[in-house]
C-alpha cells in the first residue's frame, strides 16, 4: 500500500474506511470469524469428535474440505467448532488483565509517592517472573482446565498493562485540563475514570489489540502443552498439539489448518486494532 499525500487527505476527509482495503478485509474477516464462533456448530458438516479410522490423514476432498487428522476427524468441522473456545479465552483474559492492570496503573500514576513505588515494585516482581512459568504454577495449585488458564494468564498480563497505563497516565495527568477539573472540585475518581481514562483509550486500545494476539497465542501454547483445553476439544492450540505427530510423516494439514487460523486471527486483530486506535487518536 502506498501512503501518499492524497491518502492522508482522504483520511482527514473521513473517507479512509472505504479506501483502506487491508482494514476492510481484516474487519470483514473478523466479522466472519465472529459469525463462525456464533453459528459454526450449525454449519459444521460433522461432529468435531467423529472418528473415522478409514479416513486417517485424508487429503482435502469434497467430503472433507480441509482433509482429516490422525483419527480421521474432519478438520473443517473441528476448525469451525473450535473457533468459539479459541476466541472467548483471549477476550476474557484480556478483559480481566485490563481491569486489574489499568486500575493499578492509574492509582500509581495518580497518587505518586510511596503508593507508586510500592505498586511499581509489585509489578516489577510479577514482571520479572516469566509469565508462562507463573501460569504453570497457578495451574499446578488450582488444577488445570481452560478457565484456570484464562485467570492465570490474566494475572500474568496485568503487570504489563499496569506499567503501560502508568506511563501514559503520567503524561496525561500533566495536562492542564486535569488541574482545571481539580480546581472545579471534581473528585479524584471522577477525573481519573471519566476524564483521563477516555483520553488514554486510543493508546491503550492500540496496545491491547497487540496483547490480544499474544493472549491467543499464550492460551494456544498452554493447550499445546496440555495445560489448557482437554481432548477431544477442538481448541486450536490443542489441534496443533495433536497434529504435530503427523509433521514428521509429511501430514501438515492437521497442524497447519489451526496454526494458520491462529495466525490469521492474530494478524487481522492487529490490523483492525492499530487502525482503530489511529482513528480514535486522530479524533481526540
Amino acid at each position: 500500500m502506498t501512503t501518499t499525500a492524497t491518502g492522508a487527505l482522504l483520511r482527514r476527509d473521513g473517507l479512509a474506511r472505504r479506501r483502506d482495503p487491508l482494514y476492510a478485509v481484516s474487519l470483514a474477516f473478523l466479522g466472519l470469524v465472529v459469525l463462525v464462533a456464533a453459528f459454526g456448530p450449525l454449519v459444521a458438516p460433522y461432529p468435531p469428535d467423529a472418528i473415522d479410522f478409514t479416513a486417517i490423514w485424508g487429503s482435502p476432498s469434497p467430503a472433507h474440505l480441509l482433509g482429516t487428522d490422525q483419527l480421521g476427524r474432519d478438520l473443517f468441522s473441528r476448525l469451525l467448532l473450535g473457533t468459539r473456545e479459541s476466541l472467548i479465552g483471549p477476550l476474557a483474559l484480556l478483559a480481566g488483565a485490563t481491569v486489574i492492570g489499568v486500575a493499578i496503573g492509574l492509582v500509581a500514576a495518580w497518587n505518586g509517592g510511596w503508593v507508586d513505588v510500592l505498586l511499581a515494585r509489585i509489578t516489577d516482581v510479577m514482571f520479572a517472573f516469566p509469565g508462562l512459568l507463573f501460569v504453570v504454577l497457578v495451574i499446578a495449585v488450582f488444577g488445570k482446565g481452560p478457565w484456570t488458564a484464562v485467570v492465570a494468564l490474566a494475572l500474568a498480563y496485568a503487570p504489563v498493562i499496569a506499567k503501560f497505563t502508568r506511563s501514559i497516565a503520567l503524561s496525561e495527568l500533566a495536562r492542564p485540563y486535569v488541574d482545571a477539573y481539580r480546581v472545579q472540585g471534581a473528585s479524584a475518581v471522577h477525573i481519573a475514570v471519566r476524564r483521563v481514562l477516555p483520553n488514554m483509550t486510543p493508546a491503550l486500545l492500540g496496545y491491547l489489540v497487540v496483547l490480544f494476539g499474544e493472549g491467543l497465542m499464550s492460551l494456544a501454547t498452554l493447550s499445546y502443552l496440555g495445560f489448557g483445553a482437554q481432548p477431544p476439544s477442538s481448541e486450536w492450540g490443542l489441534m496443533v498439539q495433536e497434529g504435530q505427530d503427523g509433521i514428521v510423516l509429511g501430514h501438515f494439514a492437521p497442524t497447519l489448518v489451526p496454526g494458520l487460523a491462529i495466525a490469521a486471527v492474530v494478524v487481522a486483530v492487529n490490523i483492525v486494532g492499530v487502525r482503530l486506535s489511529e482513528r480514535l487518536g486522530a479524533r481526540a
Partner: protein
Amino acid sequence: MNTPFPRRRLAGTALATGAAAILLAGCTAAGPSTSEAPAVELPFGPTTPAASGPVDSVTWMLPAEPATFDFDIDSGAAENTVFANVCERLMAVQPDLTTVPHLAESAEWVDDTHVVFTIRDGVTFHDGSPMTAADVLWSMQRHAADGADESDEYANVVSMEQTGEREITVTMAQRDAIFIQAMAGNGGMVLNPRVVEAQGDAFGSPGTPDACTGPYTLGEWKPGSSLTIERAADYWDDSREVLAGEVVFRWADQSAVVNALTAGEADGSYLDSPASAVPLQQVADVSLAQGPSTNAWVLLATERGPLADERIRQALSLAIDRSGITTAAFGGLAQPWKTPIGQGAWGYETEAFQAAYDELEGAPASPGAADLERAKALVAEAGAPDEPILVASDGGSVRNVVSNALVAAAKQIGLDAEIVTVPSAQYGDFYSDEAVRGQADLFSDEYYISKNDPVGFYKNGASTATVNFVGFSDPDYDALVKEAFAATDDAERSELAIELQRRWVEATPWISIAQSPSTVALRAELSGVPASAAYLYYPWAADLGTTEG
C-alpha cells in the same frame, strides 16, 4: 492440484502476510502428495538376514544414557541393550526367544524342590581368570540378596549350595517353572567377584571395568556423551563368531534417534516404539525389521466402579476398533491383538499357543455388525453405568488414539465415555497409587514381561495379584495359576497357560489392544542382528556385520 485450504485462501491472500503465504505454499507442495501411502509390510522374524562380513565400528543409538551397570541396583532398556553384549548368564535367550543353557551346561529339576545347575568348564572372565562354581554361587547370592533388583526371581529359593566341583544345587520352597528361564535374565548373570569386590561401591559407574565373560568388554564411557564396547581379546567361546569390532553408543529421545538415523549419523537402533519406524520407512538408506516381543498395548480397568461388571468390559472389547488404532497410532507397524502379551511370550510350544490364539473370540480386529450387536446386548443385559466411563490419556500420540477410539467404541454401543488427561510424569502412578486410579476407569499402557512364558503374565489375573485392580476373581483361575507354576514340563504348562489365557480373554480384566513388536532400524549395508526383543539379553553386536563380504 487444489490447494488444501480453499476456505482460507481468501483470507490468506487478503491478509497477505508473508508467513502465511510461505506456509500455505509449503503445504500445497507437501500436503496431498503424501496422503494415504499404504503402509509397507516390514520384514518380521526373529533375526535380520545373516551378515556376510565383519564391521569395524558402528554407532548405535539408545533411548537414554545407561545409569549403572550394576544390575543389582537397577536396569532398563538402555543398560540391557549394552550389557547383553558384555555379560553372560547361566541360561541364554536366543533370537527366537527360546532359552538354552549357556554358562550352565545344564539345568534340571531333580525332584520337586531341587534344581541342579552344572557349570560350564573353560569359561574365563575378561581379566583372564577362570569362572568357577564358587563365582557362580557368589553371583547368585548377590542377586538374591534383600533389596537387590533381581531378588524377586529368587522369591521361592530356600537355599543355594555348591554341591560339586561344577555343580550348584538350588533348594526351592515349591516348584517354580519360571525359575530356570529367569536365569537367562539379569538374575542369572555371572560376575567376577574379584573385580566387583575390588571396585566396592564404585562398581557399575563410569570408569570402572566390567566383571563379565561376554564377547565384548566395556571400553570408554564418557558420561553424558558416549559409551564404547570393544570385541573381547580372548573370548572363551572360540566357536562364536564376533563380527562387530566395536560399538559406540550414543543416546537421545526418539525423535532425535530418528533424525540421527535419517541423517546417517547413526548406524542403528532398537526403537522405543514401532511408531518411530514410520518416518524411517521413507529413508532409502535405512532398513527396518520387526520381531516378536512380549510387549502389548492394553487398557487396564481400575477398581473405580463402572467396569466392575465384566459384561461392560466384554462389550467394550467387542466394540473397540483395534486395527483402526494400529493404523492411526503405529502406522500399521503394530498388530491388533487379542491377548495382553505379545507373541514373544510364547517361548515354548509356540504352535500350540498360536493355534489357541487363533481360536480366541471377543476381541475382533475390527468390530463387525455381529460384534456390535453382541456388545449392545451385553450392555442392555448389564445395564449402562450411571456415570460416564473415564479413560486416561497423557496427551501422547498413542494414548490419545487409544482413548479416543475407546470413547468412539463406547458411543457406538450406547455407553457414555470421556477422556481425562493425566500428565505423563504421573502416569506410572496408576500402578501404585489408588488415588490416581480413582481418576479413571481405564488407563492405557504398554505392558511387557521379562520372561518368555505366558504363565509369568497370567498370574496377574489371580484374585490376589497386585495389578488385578478391577477385582476379577475366579477360584478355578487361581488354582490354575498355582498348577501352572508347578508344571515344569513344557507341554503340560502350555496347556495350563492356554486355559488361563482363554479365561482371561473371556473375563477381560484388561482390554487388549495391540501387540507392539520389537523394531530395529539399521543402515542398509548392515545386517545380522536379532529383530526380536532378545536384544535385551542376547549378544546382538556379535551378529552385526556388513551385507557384502
